[in-house]
């Protein structure tokens, strides 16, 4: 069944000019987000997940970032050709984003109600009364107890979980088509994480929002994602449906990530596997495959050229010489 592609990122390259030279945290990334579905982008810190999402939001070029090439198509329009004002109107209305730190993401001097109402003021011509009613309805939607009371409270009076709910309410206020969630549960307690994830899933089904879920937590991915993209040091190294990735990971890095998860079926008291080494510095990337220094399967060929994504099935691709050859054999 063909699904409508809502957001298409094509060969995106983003570079930053720094004092120590030019780095390319996103190096030719492509993925599609389907309407109403969830795409998870998985990877370690510094692999380019957040830069990718900020590019979609139009906040790069920032201080010294630059989009070198590629295209970001939303609903058939190339966002990279949009003017600053066009992009601003899109932000928060059609494409919204929440991120990791709910503790600091709300403005400390305004009440919760004010901050949600502000979103309506920015994007919808609404009277104060209407905005208030809409904001209240949003707080009810994100299941904040006693919403009328909370409307009048300040951020510091709320817990982390509550604040993240408020952030979700703000970002979904205008019913956006795409929600980018950049590690939205990382800073929360595990029990609260589960509640917030459930809430996001409910709202997604309710509103038909497409979600890009950025995380390093594979447990969360299994719970929320339809499709998964695995990133490593600015490259996409594997992509597939959530079943492809969890049942039959092709890339040694994905395999390593999965091995490093504790399994409830483990009865043998085995030690958890960790991936050796560190993510290479963007200033000093190895030749060839960027993962080769940490890879158990690495061969000489891996140091010579970078592997391209290769199809294993209609939905499943990975970029690794060794797996491709083994698969062909």
């Amino acid at each position, binding site marked *: 069944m063909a699904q409508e592609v809502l957001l298409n990122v094509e060969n995106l390259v983003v570079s930053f000019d720094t004092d120590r030279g030019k780095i390319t945290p996103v190096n030719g990334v492509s993925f599609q987000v389907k309407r109403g579905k969830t795409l998870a982008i998985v990877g370690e810190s510094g692999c380019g997940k957040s830069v990718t999402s900020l590019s979609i939001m139009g906040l790069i070029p920032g201080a010294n970032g630059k989009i070198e090439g590629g295209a970001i198509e939303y609903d058939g329009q190339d966002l990279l050709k949009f003017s600053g004002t066009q992009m601003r109107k899109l932000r928060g209305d059609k494409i919204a984003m929440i991120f990791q730190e709910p503790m600091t993401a709300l403005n400390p001097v305004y009440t919760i109600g004010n901050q949600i109402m502000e979103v309506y003021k920015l994007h919808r011509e609404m009277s104060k009364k209407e905005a208030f009613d809409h904001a209240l309805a949003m707080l009810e939607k994100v299941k904040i107890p006693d919403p009328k009371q909370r409307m009048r409270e*300040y951020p510091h009076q709320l817990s982390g979980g509550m604040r993240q709910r408020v952030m979700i309410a703000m970002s979904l206020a205008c019913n956006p088509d795409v929600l980018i969630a950049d590690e939205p549960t990382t800073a929360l307690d595990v029990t609260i994480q589960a509640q917030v994830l459930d809430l996001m899933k409910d709202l997604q089904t309710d509103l038909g929002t497409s979600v890009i879920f950025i995380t390093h937590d594979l447990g969360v991915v299994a719970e929320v994602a339809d499709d998964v993209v695995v990133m490593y040091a600015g490259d996409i190294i594997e992509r597939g449906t959530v079943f492809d990735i969890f049942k039959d990971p092709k890339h040694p890095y994905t395999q390593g990530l999965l091995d490093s998860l504790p399994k409830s079926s483990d009865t043998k008291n085995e030690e958890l596997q960790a991936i050796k080494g560190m993510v290479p510095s963007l200033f000093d990337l190895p030749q060839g495959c960027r993962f080769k220094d940490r890879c158990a399967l690495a061969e000489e060929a891996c140091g010579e050229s970078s592997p391209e994504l290769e199809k294993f099935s209609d939905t499943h691709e990975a970029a690794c010489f060794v797996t491709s050859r083994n698969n062909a054999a």
Partner: protein
Amino acid sequence: MSTQVANNSLGRRALQKLLRQKLTVICFVVIIIYLSIALLGALNLLPDFQARVGESYEPPSLSIAKIFGTDIFGRSVLFKLLAGTKTAISIGFLVTSIAVPIGITLGSLAGYYGGKIDGFVVWLFSVIVSVPYLLMVIAISYVLGKGMLSMCIAMGSIGWVGLCRLIRAEFLKHKEREYVLAARLLGANDYNLIFKQILPNVLHLAIITASLQVLGAIKSEVILTYLGVGVQDGSSWGSMISDATGELVNGHWWPLAGVVITMFFIIYALNVVGDALRDALDPKLVD
């Protein structure tokens, strides 16, 4: 309990904090008394300080007009002090109302946009502060002509520098904060980010600086008038101190004593309230 918390706006909480300290409340009252005197002066309800109430240089005695004695022309020192209060307070507020808007606007724009705008603003205030304050004020007020208004314009056009630096630094810090990014991600424009998101977070600094600016302006007026620039009709504390230099040698201490006492209370009160405002309004110290 929770209802009570919810009804506490930030402003109201700051006010409660202020009123908890007895000294602050007393100083508040002192400031209000001075303000009322200034208001009476503006409405021409103060007794005429030019009128003779007795002989030349009568020492203090127990009638209202002569409680601080009389000056060389037999005018009441107290009435002169009251007229001086009006002058001082008007100068304080006039200077502040010139300096604070300039400081806030330039500081916010420089801090928020950075780059060329920041470069220009930094250049501008560096040039201004590189000339000694008094020389600069005297130079400007000579150009504009003597008198209270030109002196206020001179002080105001220099007095914004401190606040501008402060606001600029705060903006540099705050524009990287996540709540600003969050607002940007929700589609806020520059105007909204500067004036609605960041400015309310740094405004407490402006309020505190403004309260100290009033103080600074009052003191500067005294110095400038003493030096011969500024208020010329004798209705100022500065001119009274200036006159007192000759009088003191002859043993006429009361005009100077009167000025010093009057100045002491308002300056002390403004200092205490300025400090208390800093404590009460700083969001970091809330709760």
